[in-house]
């Protein structure tokens, strides 16, 4: 991610205590969030977590059962979608099939009553920015998936909205195109300075695009932070497990000091020494989360001391740039380890070899919930 200009003093979008009920079902549960001007904020969660409902409330297609939404200081209660300074890029793109690309992009400006000459100028400008200048006269069915997406984007951005909402923007694209578009989106956002709110279930997408991520589960925001914060310092087992892969071990707190803690893990048959303090009751039951890439693996017979366990390699998945190892510990537990393939092929560790797993004291994250 490049550095982008985010105005942290401007709480451009404020979601205050918003709840949405459909009959007995609570889709969004008392969500409060502040989004700053100029940032790309991602709502990340699995299906049914409420992220899409929240997005639709921002757009105006649903109204909150309780709570307020303020955009640039203005309360959006009772304001219909066509009067909000917000535009949306739909998951299906929703391009008007009976209009040309240019007409699609011009639609929003026509509703504002902008002069024809001005419309043509801005449409032309926008189409050039998304590199679709020569396709202006085509109809949606004459475009490829990636081109259609850019039209949808152009159509929403040409109105210079205060907020752009994107619903699963990269979902319909294939892998190569997705990567390419991810960076394009970021560049576009920096160029135009529009505040983005993106909804996605794809963590990779969130991690790449976002300046901040809000992880949602069952209608609630579970954690808000930068991608680094979310990944390295998840605040709960749910978040740790949701983003990337993680090895989670249950244990008992046996030493709790301001500068370090010690946790006895039966599953590891060992003690984990973590080099930062946590706040928890003495003797509490906690969870230790260690990311697969933070584990060192070497050949060896017996584990000694803290932050070290021994096991046997059971499965290897070769991914080209790295390999994922599943190691069966002596205690019976399976641990996932990711090793970049630095060595040449013949020197790598193979199946059934006895290995020792080690990690830095700063690597584990201790979770109490």
């Amino acid at each position, binding site marked *: 991610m490049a550095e982008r200009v985010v105005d942290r003093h401007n709480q451009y979008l404020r979601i205050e205590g918003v709840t949405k009920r459909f009959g007995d079902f609570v889709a969004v549960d008392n969500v409060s969030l502040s989004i700053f001007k100029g940032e790309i904020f991602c709502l990340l969660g699995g299906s049914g977590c409420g992220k899409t409902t929240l997005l639709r409330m921002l757009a105006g*297609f649903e109204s909150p059962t309780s709570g307020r939404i303020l955009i640039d200081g203005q309360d959006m209660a009772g304001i219909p979608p066509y009067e909000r300074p917000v535009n949306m890029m739909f998951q299906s793109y*929703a391009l*008007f099939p009976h209009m040309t690309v240019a007409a699609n992009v011009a639609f929003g400006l026509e509703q504002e009553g902008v002069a024809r000459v001005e419309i043509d100028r801005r449409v032309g400008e926008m189409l050039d920015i998304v590199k679709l200048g020569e396709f202006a006269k085509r109809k949606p069915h004459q475009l*490829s998936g990636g081109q259609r997406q850019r039209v949808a984007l152009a159509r929403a951005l040409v109105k210079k909205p205060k907020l752009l909402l994107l619903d699963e923007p990269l979902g319909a694209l294939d892998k190569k195109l997705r990567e390419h578009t991810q960076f394009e989106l970021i560049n576009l956002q920096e160029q135009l300075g529009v505040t983005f709110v993106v909804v996605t279930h794809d963590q990779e997408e969130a991690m790449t695009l976002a300046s901040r991520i809000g992880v949602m589960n069952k209608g609630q925001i579970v954690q808000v932070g930068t991608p680094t914060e979310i990944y390295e310092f998840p605040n709960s087992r749910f978040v740790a497990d949701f983003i990337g892969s993680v090895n989670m071990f249950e244990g008992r707190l046996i030493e709790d000091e301001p500068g370090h803690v010690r946790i006895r893990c039966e599953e590891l048959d060992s003690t984990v020494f973590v080099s930062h303090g946590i706040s928890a009751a003495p003797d509490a039951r906690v969870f230790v989360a260690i990311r697969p890439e933070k584990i060192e693996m070497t050949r060896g017979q017996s584990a000694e001391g803290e932050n070290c366990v021994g096991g046997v390699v059971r499965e290897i998945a070769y991914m080209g740039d790295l390999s994922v190892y599943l190691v069966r510990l002596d205690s019976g537990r399976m641990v996932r380890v990711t090793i970049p393939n630095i060595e040449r092929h013949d020197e790598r560790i193979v199946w059934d070899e006895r290995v020792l797993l080690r990690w830095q004291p700063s690597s584990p994250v201790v979770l109490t919930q």
Partner: protein
Amino acid sequence: MNDRGWFRKSVLGFGLAFLYIPILSMMFFSFNNSRLVTVWDAENSPTLRWYVRLFENDQLLGAAWISIKIAALSASGAAILGTLAGLVLTRFGPFRGRALLSAMTTAPLVMPEVIMGISMLLLFVAFEQMIGWPAGRGLVTITIAHVTFTMAYVTVVVQSRLAGFDDALEEAALDLGAKPATVFFKITLPLIMPAIVSGWLLAFTLSWDDVVISQFVSGPGSSTLPMEIFSRVRRGVSPDINALATIMVLIVATGVVASTIWMKRQERKRLLEEQMARSDIP
């Protein structure tokens, strides 16, 4: 399942023969000089005698003109009301009386025409007694009756088009600043127009062709073409009718074939354009 080709071909062959032989036979005998129609008068046939008589038959021509007027009016009325009903039923959530509206737009599809005929006639009579309108029955009552029974067909066609409609399109329009009325006229209506046109054509054909309901609700001097045809053919075959039938079949056939060709061409053009798009660099 290519080995089943013979089954498919024979079934379709038989079926299509069954459908077309009566029509073709009817057309064939329209050129027969004999009044008996089905007994081929080899010496004097083929002849255009009956066609000539047709064009001199003012009664039939007058009835045809009445039928066209009624059909055009009914179809337009049915198209408007049927489309509205279709929109209401698809878009609006539950509302009081929804079940009734839904029932009223489905029942005419299967209701025997004699029941609809008698019920509407009695309605007109009752109205006439109560408020003086309609004063006697004629074009107006027939048109009203036709609108009522054909609008159900339009509703069905529009409903099935709307069922496959992408709601996101309307939401996108709203999101871009269009008020609901604008969304309807600029987005929804253009996209369902083909369905409305089919509905109109369907309603036109049904009205143009109707004999039973027309008989009940027509008055003196407002005889429609089907009514005239019916009264003639009750007594048996009549060569003028064969000639009339041939003309109608040819008109319809030309229309259907032309529209099918046109649609196929559109389809092919569209496919070509989509292929073009796929080969572009994204």
